[in-house]
């Protein structure tokens, strides 16, 4: 692979509109995420956060505008091993039992050739990813028998296992207890230090809070705030000198 052009932003969204069931769920979204940035996507339920994330990873088509990942339009993007994705999800289980290790190893498929068994290095990567979410002791357990938060941790491990350059996380820590959130934040911090880019939707950033460089607030399908993290959050009242709407970053 040729060395990537570091000037290309990790994510570039231009004038994006997305139509779901005849309704414009995103309207004219412009967003650029540079490499190494850690961006929180905030907003109320139904404001379009998941829709934005799912369009960025190419799961939903754009009605207008375009999405580029590392400088390539998402429709033609093929280097999926550079992306780690945690979908917003209630369960990790399917109709047949599957173990934690089996689910996590499907995160390696972007690197795996067809008709090849799992290599030793890949097994080690699975163990390491499970270590990060503190689930190493449960690698042989069935995912269907885990609690919701534990299943969420399995999905996080599945996204981390391929050591991607861009992590796209839709409420990764929903239902995850504070201790595990701390472990997760530590893992993300270590990756951010190595230059990983993170886009994360969350209602409660918890221990991740300190890592965020920038936050984006969506309201009814538009970006209404794009700027420094704290002013956008509940921390607003620690700035007693004015209403939050006066902060730089609020867009009218």
């Amino acid at each position, binding site marked *: 692979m040729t060395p990537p052009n570091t000037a290309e932003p990790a994510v570039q969204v231009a004038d994006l509109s997305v139509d779901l069931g005849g309704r414009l769920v995103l309207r004219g979204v412009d967003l650029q995420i540079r490499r190494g940035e850690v961006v929180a996507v905030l907003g109320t339920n139904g404001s379009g956060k998941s829709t934005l994330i*799912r369009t960025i*990873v*190419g*799961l939903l088509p754009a009605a207008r505008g375009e999405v580029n990942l590392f400088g390539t339009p998402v429709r033609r993007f*093929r*280097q*999926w*091993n550079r*992306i780690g*994705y945690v*979908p917003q999800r209630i369960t*990790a289980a*399917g*109709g*047949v*039992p*599957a*173990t934690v290790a*089996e*689910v996590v*190893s*499907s*995160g390696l*498929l*972007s690197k*795996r050739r*067809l*008709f090849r068994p*799992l290599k030793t290095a890949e097994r080690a990567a699975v163990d390491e990813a499970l270590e990060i979410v503190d689930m190493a002791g449960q690698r*042989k*357990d*069935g995912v269907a028998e885990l609690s919701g938060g534990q299943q969420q941790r399995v999905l996080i491990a*599945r996204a981390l296992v391929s050591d991607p350059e861009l992590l796209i996380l839709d409420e990764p820590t929903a239902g995850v207890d*504070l*201790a595990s*959130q*701390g*472990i997760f*934040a*530590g893992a993300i911090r270590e990756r951010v230090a190595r230059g990983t880019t993170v886009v994360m939707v969350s209602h409660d950033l918890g*221990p991740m*809070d*300190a*890592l*965020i*460089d920038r936050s984006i607030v969506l309201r009814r399908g538009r970006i209404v705030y794009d700027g*420094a*993290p*704290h*002013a956008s959050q*509940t*921390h607003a*009242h*620690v*700035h*007693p000198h004015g209403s939050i709407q006066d902060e730089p970053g609020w867009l009218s």
Partner: protein
Amino acid sequence: MTMFELEFMQRALIAGLLTGLSAPAIGTYLVQRRLSLMGDGIGHIAITGVALGLLTGTAPVLTAVLVAIAGATAIELVRARGKASGDVALALLFYGGIAGGVLLIGLAGQGAATLNTYLFGSLTTVSPSDLYVVVGLAVAVLVVAIGLGPQLFAVCQDEEFARVTGLRVQLLNLLIAVMAAVTVTVAMRTVGLLLVSALMVVPVATAQQFTRSFRSTFLTACALGVTACLAGIITSYNANVAPGATIVVLALAGFVVAAIAGTLVRRRRGVLAPLPDEEPEIGVPVPAPHVVSSAHQHAHDPKCGHPAVEHGDHVDYVHDGHLHAAHGDHWDEH
């Protein structure tokens, strides 16, 4: 002369072995995707394929496999669209398949007896040329089901995630549908078109009583499928009934036994090994006395200029000789 020396029984047993392997193999993926009844639908459609073969004088196995693949592709396309009308479209396809098949077989001048051999299997009708087709198709299904196991697993487990890892999801879904169609044809002479779906689903359900991993479910289901097929064929020979019925009855009996045994085993395991304590107390930080920084006028962040220090699972900021840590909507003294 024992039954194992009879050539038609040898052929029936070979066909049974391959059916017993391939039906649960593809069935595991169908069950995982919660499409357990797909095999049943394809079986109905394949009846028209058989009838076309009988009408035109070509081998019914070949026409059945072609029509089944066409039908499975149609089912998959309707499913992928996910429209509400798709449900009705599938029903039309299924009943059209079975009614058309019965009609065409009547036109071909064949009676109910011929039709029955396809609907419920028949030991004596596996011809040597049928056997070659069955062996070839079954081996192809098994190579794909095992060789592409990780990819197919990922697609069936979480289709959206599979797309974001760059898998060709539509192609793999189509592959599963085509493999199911091929398996239906493979199983046609052994269990018959009306019961093939049972052999795809029941061994998987039985295996699940004891297994935790996808891999062991897959392997156990195949072993159970082979056992049911071979035992069913032998029983069918001795009792002189259609093999489809004996195979499925044996598979179901296996399920009942496994379900009862599984419940007992789980109950005993639960008694012997109660849940381990979820949270080992070591490593969990002792909650510090909670001191709120009063009237804190400043919001810290990594770029605010105050030195940041890691403190366990969070970051503190050094501020006028104090350590301040974010806590919800206020700042704590640490």
